[in-house]
C-alpha cells in the first residue's frame, strides 16, 4: 500500500498543514532572512497565515478549480499562496520570475489564470504590460508594496490587505477554511508545472496531490528525512525540483524550509544556515570548488601544502569512509586530524557542516568535482528525474554512489530501456497529462502509464542507470555499435583545459572530434610555461597544446575502453578548432548547448578531411563579430591521431584487481 494512504487521509498539502500545526505547532516551518536577521515562522503561525490568506482570496472571489499564477523569488508568502490556493481547491501555477512579459503571457493565457500573486513592482509591471492579452486574468495581488503607491488600478490588491480582509472573513465564517480543505482529496490536481521548453511553447505538466506526495514521501522515507532537516529554497519556484524539495517534502515530513535574503546572498545565507538537506545543479558545485581552489592558490606556501596534503589523503580514503568500507587505523587517524584542521573548517566556510544529504542532477557532474565533495564527507548523490515523474526516477542508494551513474530506480518506480535505447519509466508520480495538449500527452505517455523520457540510457552490471545522451542524438557507427556523442563530449569537457567538444561518428567507421580549448585554463598554463601567444587561434595551434589535449583524449579513450558497450566509440582523430564555437555564429544555443547540425554544416570540409585521413587541413570560416560585422577566419589545422585501446572492460577490471 502506498505511504500516502497510510497517513490517515493526509493526502493534500492543506491537510498536512493542519496536521503539522496540531502535532508540531512550535517547530519551525519557514524562515526568511529579512533585514539581516533570520525570521522564523512555526507551523502554527504558518497555518494562521495561510488560513487568513485563503479566506482573503475567497473573499476576492477565488473559487474551486481557479488557477493562480505565482511569480517571484523564493518568498514565504509565495509558498503560502500555493497552499492557500490548494486549500480552496485551486491550482497554483508558478512562473519563472526572470521570464520576459511575452513568455508569461503564453502561460497565463494557456492556463486560463484568473488570479496572480506577484512579488514586487517589477513583476506587477510585467503583468500590466500583458494584461490585455490575458482575458481571464482578473486580479493581481502584490507582496512588496514598495514603488506601488501610485498604482491606482482597482484590480490590484496588496497582500497585506487581502490577509486583513481574510481575517475578517474568517471571523464571520469560522468553519469555512476547514470545510474547504476537507473537500480536497489526493486525486485532485495539485499544481501545473510548465516545463521551460527548449523547443516550441512550454507545456503545462498537470500533477496531482497523489503524484507529488507519494513520490516525495517515498524518497523521504528512503533517505530517512526527519522534521529536523533544514533546507534552503533558492532555485526557481516554477521548477518542479524546488516544488518537491522545498515545498512537498517539507510538508510531507514537517521540516523547515528557508528562503535566502536575495539571489545575490545565497552563498552567504547558505553558510549561516548550514542546511542538512541540499540540492544544487552541477554548475554550482563546480563554481564553489573553483573558488576554493583559486583562494588556495593565493594562500601562503605552507598553508597550500598543508591543504593539498590533507586533500590528497581525503581523496584516497574519505570516499571509502563515507561508503562505510573498511579503512585501516592509520589513515583513519590522519583523516580525523584532517577533519579537525582542514575538512571541518572548509565545510563550515561553505555552509556544508551539517549536510546529511545533498543531491545533484540535471546534467553530468565531473568525477573530480563529485569526488571532492564526497571525500570531505559530504553525502553528495546523483539522481535522475523529470517534471513528468514528480522528480524522482532514479536515486543513488547510500553506499552505492558512483560518479558516472544516476543510481537505481527510486522506490515504486519501474524503469525499462526501449529498443532504441530510450529510458522509459512508470511510477505513482507519473503526471496526469499535459494541460490542453492531448496529442503531446499521447506522444509522451503510453496508455498503461509508461513515460518516454527522450533520454538514452543503459543499465550497467551493478544495476545502475547510466544516462548517456538525448535519444535523438544517439547514432550508430557503421559496425553497429552505439554512438552517444554527448557522453563522449562530457568526458572531454570534464578536463578544465577543454571548453567545448563535438564528436562525430553516426554512420561513420570511427569517431572523430572537434575540440575548443579553454582560453582561461590553457592561457594560465601558457603563462607558467613561457609560451607566448597573441590570440586564441595562435594558442590553439601550438604543438604543445596539441600534445596536452591528445593526452586528455587518450584518457577518455581509456575510460571508454573499460565499458564494453561503448568501447568501439573511442576517438581516433581530432583537431583543435581555430575559433571558439559561438552563439553569435549560431553554433551554440544561448544556453551554450552545441547545435550539432549547424556545426556539421559549417565545418563540413574539416570533417571530410578528418575521415579522409589527411594530416592537416586548411580552414576558412565566416565569423560574426559582436557588432554584427562579418569576416573570415583562416588557418591550417593539424589533425591529430589519438591512441585507442582495443581491449574492452576485461583488462581494466584485471588491472583494478
Amino acid at each position, binding site marked *: 500500500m502506498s505511504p500516502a494512504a497510510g497517513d490517515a487521509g493526509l493526502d493534500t498539502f492543506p491537510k498536512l498543514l493542519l496536521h503539522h500545526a496540531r502535532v508540531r505547532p512550535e517547530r519551525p516551518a519557514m524562515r526568511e532572512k529579512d*533585514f*539581516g536577521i533570520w525570521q522564523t515562522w512555526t507551523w502554527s503561525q504558518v497555518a494562521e497565515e495561510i488560513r487568513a490568506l485563503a479566506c482573503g482570496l475567497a473573499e476576492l472571489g477565488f473559487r474551486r478549480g481557479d488557477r493562480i499564477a505565482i511569480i517571484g523569488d523564493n518568498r514565504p508568502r509565495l509558498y503560502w499562496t500555493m497552499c492557500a490556493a490548494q486549500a480552496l481547491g485551486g491550482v497554483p501555477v508558478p512562473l519563472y520570475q526572470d521570464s520576459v512579459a511575452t513568455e508569461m503571457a503564453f502561460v497565463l493565457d494557456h492556463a486560463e489564470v484568473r488570479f496572480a500573486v506577484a512579488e514586487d513592482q517589477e513583476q506587477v509591471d510585467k503583468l500590466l504590460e500583458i494584461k490585455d492579452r490575458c482575458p481571464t486574468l482578473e486580479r493581481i495581488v502584490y507582496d512588496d508594496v*514598495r*514603488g506601488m*503607491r501610485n498604482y491606482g488600478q482597482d484590480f490590484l490588491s496588496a497582500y497585506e490587505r487581502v490577509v486583513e480582509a481574510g481575517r475578517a472573513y474568517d471571523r464571520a465564517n469560522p468553519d469555512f477554511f476547514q470545510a474547504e480543505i476537507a473537500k480536497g482529496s489526493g486525486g485532485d490536481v495539485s499544481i501545473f508545472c510548465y516545463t521551460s521548453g527548449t523547443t516550441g511553447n512550454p507545456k503545462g505538466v498537470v500533477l496531482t496531490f497523489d503524484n507529488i506526495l507519494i513520490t516525495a514521501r517515498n524518497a523521504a522515507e528512503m533517505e530517512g528525512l526527519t522534521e529536523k532537516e533544514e533546507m534552503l529554497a533558492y532555485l526557481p519556484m516554477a521548477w518542479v525540483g524546488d516544488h518537491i524539495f522545498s515545498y512537498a517534502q517539507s510538508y510531507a515530513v514537517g521540516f523547515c524550509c528557508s528562503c535566502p535574503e*536575495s539571489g545575490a546572498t545565497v552563498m*552567504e545565507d547558505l553558510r549561516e544556515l548550514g542546511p542538512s538537506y541540499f540540492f544544487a545543479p552541477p554548475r554550482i558545485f563546480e563554481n564553489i570548488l573553483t573558488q576554493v581552489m583559486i583562494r588556495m592558490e593565493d594562500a601562503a606556501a605552507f598553508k597550500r601544502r598543508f591543504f593539498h596534503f590533507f586533500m590528497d589523503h581525503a581523496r584516497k580514503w574519505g570516499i571509502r569512509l563515507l561508503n562505510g568500507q573498511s579503512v585501516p587505523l592509520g589513515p583513519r587517524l590522519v583523516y580525523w586530524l584532517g577533519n579537525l584542521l582542514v575538512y571541518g573548517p572548509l565545510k563550515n566556510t561553505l555552509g556544508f557542516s551539517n549536510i546529511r544529504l545533498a543531491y545533484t542532477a540535471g546534467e553530468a557532474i565531473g568525477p573530480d568535482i563529485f569526488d571532492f565533495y564526497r571525500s570531505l564527507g559530504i553525502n553528495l548523490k546523483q539522481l535522475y528525474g523529470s517534471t513528468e515523474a514528480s522528480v524522482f526516477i532514479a536515486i543513488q542508494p547510500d553506499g552505492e554512489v558512483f560518479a558516472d551513474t544516476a543510481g537505481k530506480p527510486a522506490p515504486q518506480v519501474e524503469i525499462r530501456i526501449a529498443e532504441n535505447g530510450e529510458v522509459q519509466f512508470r511510477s505513482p508520480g507519473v503526471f496526469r497529462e499535459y494541460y490542453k495538449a492531448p496529442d503531446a500527452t499521447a506522444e509522451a505517455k503510453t496508455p498503461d502509464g509508461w513515460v518516454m523520457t527522450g533520454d538514452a540510457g543503459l543499465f550497467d552490471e551493478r544495476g545502475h542507470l547510466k544516462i548517456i545522451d538525448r535519444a535523438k542524438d544517439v547514432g550508430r557507427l557503421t559496425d553497429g555499435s552505439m554512438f552517444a556523442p554527448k557522453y563522449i563530449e562530457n568526458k572531454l569537457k570534464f578536463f578544465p583545459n577543454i571548453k567545448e567538444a563535438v564528436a562525430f561518428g553516426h554512420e561513420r567507421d570511427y569517431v572523430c572530434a572537434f575540440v575548443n580549448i579553454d582560453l582561461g585554463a590553457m592561457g594560465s598554463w601558457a603563462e607558467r610555461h613561457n609560451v607566448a601567444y597573441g590570440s586564441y587561434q595562435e594558442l590553439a595551434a601550438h604543438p604543445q597544446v596539441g600534445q596536452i589535449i591528445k593526452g586528455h583524449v587518450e584518457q577518455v579513450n581509456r575510460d571508454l575502453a573499460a565499458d564494453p558497450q561503448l568501447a568501439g566509440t573511442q576517438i581516433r582523430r581530432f583537431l583543435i578548432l581555430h575559433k571558439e564555437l559561438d552563439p553569435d555564429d549560431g553554433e551554440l544555443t544561448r544556453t551554450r548547448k552545441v547545435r550539432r547540425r549547424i556545426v556539421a554544416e559549417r565545418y563540413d570540409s574539416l570533417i571530410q578531411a578528418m575521415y579522409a585521413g589527411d594530416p592537416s587541413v586548411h580552414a576558412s570560416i565566416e565569423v560574426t563579430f559582436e557588432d554584427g560585422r562579418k569576416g573570415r577566419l583562416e588557418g591550417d589545422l593539424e589533425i591529430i591521431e589519438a591512441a585507442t585501446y582495443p581491449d574492452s572492460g576485461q583488462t581494466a577490471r584485471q588491472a583494478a584487481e
Partner: protein
Amino acid sequence: MSAQTSTGAGTQAIGAAGASGARVFEEVLLEVRNISLSFGGVKALTEISFDIRKGEIRAIIGPNGAGKTSMLNVINGFYHPQEGTITYKGEVRRQMRPYQAAKQGIARTFQNVALFKGMSTLDNVMTGRLLKMRTNLFWQALYWGPNLKEEIRHREFCEHIIDFLEIQAIRKTPVGRLPYGLQKRVELARALAMEPELLLLDEPMAGMNVEEKEDMCRFVLDVNEEFGTTIALIEHDMGVVMDISDRVVVLDYGRKLADGPPDEVRSDEAVIKAYLGVGH
C-alpha cells in the same frame, strides 16, 4: 518598507504623479536669494536665486565650472556666500556649519565618492546615524547598557535602508572593494540613514553604465516617493534629468540661465546655446 522610516513629511504632491509628470508643489522648503560667492577674484556664483519646494525632485544642471557643486556646498553650509540669504524651513540662515545643516535634515552625497574605504557597507551606513545617537562615547565604547539597545534600534533602521537599496549582498564587504556604481549606492544609503528632509546628490549617476543608471534613477524616484524626501541633484545626463526631475535650474559661469519644468528648459534658446547644443 514601512512608514516608520519616513521623515513624517509625506509628499505634498497635488494631483497625481505619473505619466504626465506634472506634479505641483506649493510649500517652499529652501529658498536662496541673490547668492554671490567668490574665492578671491574668482566669482563662483553671481546673484543666484531659486527655491526648492517640499517633495519635489529639483535638478541643477550646467556646463563644467558653472558653479553647481559650489551651489550645493552653499546649501549645506560648507561655503559661506558673501552676499544673499538662504531661507530653510522658513528660517533665514546666516553662517552655518555643515554639521548644523546635517542636524536640520540636510544630507548629501559627493561627486567623488567619500566613504570610509576600509569599513564595511553596514558600518558606513551606520555612520549616517551618528547624529541620532543619544549615548555618549563612554557607553558606545562599552557597547553595553543603554547603548546596546540604541545600537540595535539604529541597526534595524539601517537594515531597512539596506533592504530598500538592495545592497544586502554587500552588507559586510569593505566598500573599497566594491565597484564604483555600488559605492555610489552605499553613499546614498548613508545619506538616507540620516532621515534627511532635503537630500543633495552630486552627480549620482556619473561614471555608471546604462543599467546602473536605470537602477539609480529607480532608487531616487523611490526615495522621493516612499519617504517623501525632497531631492536636489546635479547631473550631466540630460536624459536622466529630463525624465526624473520636476523642475530644473540651469547655471552657466555662476549665473542662472533658466529655471522651470524640464520641457520649458529644454526648449530655452539660451540653454541650448550654452549647454545642450544643437543637433547637427
